[in-house]
């Protein structure tokens, strides 16, 4: 028997189990969402047709169009206005007021090897220039020499900065990550993760860095952990140092490539009569590797789909693909892909009585508005 009066703590624990606190990754996603919503609303408020003069709008669009060498076109969903461009990586105007071009940043990466209870060991310190709308892939060089325990890894990161007042926060979302961490006794400990998850985040205020453990932090009695320490800044001196060069180790490679950073989407679900209804605000903006909750009918969690948008493979153009699972993470699950050539897809919602999901790609953005 649960004695509420005699044992309020037990009641509190049961309530906490029934309504669990969000996990750290959920907290970071919420933080990111709030920043994004704020920017969207600020733009929506400042970006109405009535809010700018015809002359100013024309001038801004001409400048934007001319600067990127592209052509202007009206999107399928008024009042969304698109600038189609052949040059990738500069900013794309998605609202009536031209969005200012994204800034080029410098990314500095320090690679650490950490063992629980021991001082971390700096393996590499390297920086690279990141054009707007580019993602980053970090990978090790060739296999480490036997004498020196260097990790081999491949990490595909979407790195975003969210601005609040005077401070920036860097959020790194990783996917398709793999690492082989040589043990001191010569054994290989490997980790692999596909899908998407927040690898880490940190404030950038006052030169602070973000610390990422793509495969988890060091554990007592466990093997070594790989830590990435990131800085993102508009001005930075070029850095290239490696502790392993003397041992014949090839330096860490930091690649950057343009990739779609987000998309405006329309979500619709069919009901039992076959009629379509919109199940998410229109147009809903989704970040690459972000997860969105789509209410398709019924209580949580089996009336909700968690849908994650995956970009094309690093450095390649291709369709935007989506994976969905039910709110409780249990099967069945599904997926589909969208592209500019095939902007609408109708897919069955497995686990229901023949209901369908219709998703329309309204606009894909190569870079987020700053």
């Amino acid at each position, binding site marked *: *028997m*649960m004695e*509420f*009066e005699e044992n309020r703590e037990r*009641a*509190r624990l*049961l*309530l*906490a*189990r*029934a*309504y*669990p*606190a*969000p996990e750290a990754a*959920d*907290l970071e996603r*919420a*933080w990111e*969402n*709030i920043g994004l*919503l*704020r920017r969207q*609303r600020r733009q929506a408020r400042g970006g109405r047709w009535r809010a700018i003069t015809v002359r100013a709008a024309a001038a801004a669009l001409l400048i934007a169009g001319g600067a990127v060498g592209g052509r202007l076109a009206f999107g399928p969903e008024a009042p969304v206005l698109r600038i189609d461009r052949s040059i990738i990586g500069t900013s794309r105007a998605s609202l009536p007021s031209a969005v200012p071009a994204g800034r080029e940043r410098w990314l500095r990466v320090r690679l650490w090897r950490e063992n629980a209870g021991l001082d971390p060991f700096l393996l590499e310190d390297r920086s690279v220039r990141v054009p707007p709308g580019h993602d980053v892939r970090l990978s090790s060089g060739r296999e480490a020499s036997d004498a020196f325990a260097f990790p081999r890894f491949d990490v595909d990161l979407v790195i975003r900065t969210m601005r*609040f*007042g*005077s*401070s920036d926060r860097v959020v790194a979302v990783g996917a398709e990550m793999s690492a082989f961490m040589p043990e001191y006794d010569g054994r290989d400990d490997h980790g692999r993760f596909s899908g998407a998850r927040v690898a880490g985040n940190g404030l950038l205020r006052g030169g602070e860095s973000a610390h990422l453990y793509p495969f988890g932090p060091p554990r007592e009695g466990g093997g070594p952990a790989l830590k990435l320490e990131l800085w993102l800044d508009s001005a930075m001196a070029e850095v290239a140092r490696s502790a392993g060069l003397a041992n014949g180790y090839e330096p860490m490679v930091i690649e950057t490539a343009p990739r779609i950073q987000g998309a405006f989407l329309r979500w619709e679900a069919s*009901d*039992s*009569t076959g009629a379509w*209804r919109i199940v998410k605000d229109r147009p809903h903006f989704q970040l690459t590797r972000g997860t969105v*909750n789509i*209410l*398709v*009918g*019924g*209580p*949580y*969690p*089996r*009336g*909700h789909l968690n849908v994650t948008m995956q970009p094309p493979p690093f450095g390649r153009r291709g369709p935007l693909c989506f994976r969905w699972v039910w*709110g*409780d993470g*249990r099967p069945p699950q599904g997926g589909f892909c969208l592209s500019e050539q095939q902007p609408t897809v109708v897919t069955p*919602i497995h*686990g*229901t*009585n023949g*209901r369908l999901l219709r998703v329309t790609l309204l606009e894909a953005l190569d870079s987020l508005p700053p």
Partner: protein
Amino acid sequence: MSAEVFETCFRDRYAALVQVLHGLTGNRSTAEDAAQEAFLRLWEKGPAARPDADHWVFRVARNVALDELKRERRRARRDALSEPVDHTRPFEDDDVQRVRTVVASMRPRDREVLLLRAFANLSGAEIAKVVGRRANAVKQDLFRARERLRELWLKQEGASR
């Protein structure tokens, strides 16, 4: 509101806010959306300092969640025939399911004071600011809510035997 105050408030209060709203609405997704909306409004037009900001964000989130709940109920009535077929929650143990059933069957005004006390650890006076009732009334609500929770729990326990 400064960025530092906002972030501190967010990191201190977001989790509790989601828990309270989850209990209030019975829907995790609605709870998260309402909590984020409340923090967005806090950043744009909320009080500049704490603890006023804390009460404000709880009050706004509660109102947003209740509004959304009304909309969802209307939608559910409209789509009553198009529910997904599988509503089982196999990952939840009996106690969790029972607590949710008990909390859902409480009166809304009892439920909200109970959850605000349990998760946000607010005092009677603070809860009164959030729910817009007098502190004495809130104390009575809280007492009645605990009694009701106990009764319902015992009833559920009896029914499950």
